[in-house]
């Protein structure tokens, strides 16, 4: 494997790695510099203007809050993120299952597909308090609310994927007397994977939004609860620190989905 890699382009692996690092560093200087300079300007502004810390904590204060509260933040973030992951898995399963039913039965497709399109466009975020009424203030209501938000992009992605399967491949399957089910498993599902991942990436962010908003509305733990409590106590630095932790965890989950997509692409298209 390594010999294969090093032989590409006739360069030894170490030189190639160096080249990649150089290019990466060249590409990263501007963005990283921009972020650092913006943070520096914010820090200087916060110190010279003497804005009350409730309104505008300097980046340094946020960092201090982050370090001091790290154990508590990690505890709450882990709780939130585990719910996000479970919600994502549930909505993947349900979304693909519903899309499968839609492709297998034309009548059900005609009956329910327009309904789902309308449901997709309705702002479901307004339902958050209703889930508390239904499931009580706990993990169950956050999970189900997150699934309710994140299920639709996966359904849309899977349906688009199924519908974009090349007609030739489907015709070949029927010529070879493959059953509908076999066609689905062996042809349509693999071909739908790229679109499915587009949906899964959208739904990852929606899952995070769903769980955090559920925690806003009612919870006694989790990062959303932490943020609301910090806001009630006017600890702005703590809000921002919680947001940094949440963003890091969120990017981690998103990165995992994106890595899955790349792995699947590699296996399917070489």
């Amino acid at each position, binding site marked *: 494997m390594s010999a294969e890699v090093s032989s590409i382009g006739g360069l030894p692996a170490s030189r190639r790695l160096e080249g990649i690092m150089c290019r990466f560093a060249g590409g990263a200087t501007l963005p990283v510099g921009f972020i650092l300079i913006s943070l520096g300007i914010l820090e200087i502004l916060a110190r010279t203007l003497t804005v009350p810390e409730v309104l505008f904590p300097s980046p340094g204060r946020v960092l201090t809050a982050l370090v001091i509260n790290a154990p508590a933040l990690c505890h709450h973030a882990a709780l939130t993120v585990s719910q996000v992951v479970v919600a994502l898995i549930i909505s993947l399963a349900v979304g693909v299952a519903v899309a499968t039913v839609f492709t297998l039965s034309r009548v059900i497709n005609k009956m329910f597909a327009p309904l789902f399109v309308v449901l997709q466009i309705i702002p479901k975020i307004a339902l958050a308090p209703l889930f508390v009424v239904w499931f009580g203030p706990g993990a169950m209501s956050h999970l189900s609310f997150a699934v309710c938000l994140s299920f639709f992009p996966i359904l849309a992605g899977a349906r688009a994927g199924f519908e974009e399967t090349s007609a030739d491949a489907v015709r070949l399957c029927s010529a070879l007397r493959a059953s509908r089910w076999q066609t689905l498993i062996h042809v349509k599902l693999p071909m739908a994977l790229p679109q499915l991942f587009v949906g899964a990436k*959208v739904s990852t962010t929606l899952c995070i939004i769903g769980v955090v908003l559920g925690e806003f509305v009612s919870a006694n733990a989790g990062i959303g609860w932490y943020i609301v409590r910090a806001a009630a106590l006017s600890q702005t630095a703590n809000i921002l620190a919680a947001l940094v932790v949440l963003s890091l965890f969120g990017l981690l989950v998103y990165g995992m989905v994106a890595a899955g997509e790349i792995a699947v692409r590699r296996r399917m298209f070489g």
Partner: protein
Amino acid sequence: MLKRSSRAQRILLPLLNCICIVLLWQYAVTHRWISPLSLAAPFDAAKVAASSFDILLPHILATAYATLLTFLLSSVCGIFLGALLMHWRAFRLAVYPSLVMFQLLPKIALAPLFVVWFGVNLISRLSFAGFISFFPIVLATLAGLRATDPLVLNLCRSMRASPVQIFWQVRLPYAVPLIMSGLKVGMTLAITGVIVSEFVTVQSGLGYIIVFASSNLQIDLMFAALGWVSLIGLMFYGAVLLLERIILMRLGAPVTGALSRPGEAVP
């Protein structure tokens, strides 16, 4: 004949299905299969929506007004910034990764912070919703403006078209489909942002009514408000869709089918 029957099917089947679901729902609630404390019967909710319309109306208008203002604000800023990013390479290289990262962050979590910054008022709702709906529009505009066919650009340059002419007559028309899909996402996020900030500010708007009704366990009022939220969302989304159709038709571009895309799902 066959075609006509299939078209009738396409409209009648979902409609019939909807009516069945609503009737079943009504029946289930009135016969106490489901507690009316967890689901309001649809006709009761409609009755409440009609009887308390004069109370709801200012809140409906407040939500619709805030959503529309947010959408206009973030689409103007977003398209402008997208164009700026396309023309200014160094700025683009510096800012683009941050923009993509911000697009992915769960920005909803910042809602309480906007209240701390701007107070309990329309400004805080507008700025929060604008902050949420702005990023997809910038990124879609940038992607659209950069997707122009290079052959066409070369042709224009060889005919000595000025950069301004190229922008208005070539790049912008080419970018319309992507910009419009960004605007659709932006519109959905605008109404989401407005409702979340109404949850948090609890001052006016349908989000406020929903929180208020749920804490009083007035489930029928809550469903009436939910119905209005859905109606506003559908209307605004339809308006953007119509705008897209009109612009594409005037440009003479093919109008694609209405198969919904994952990115356009409204949270």
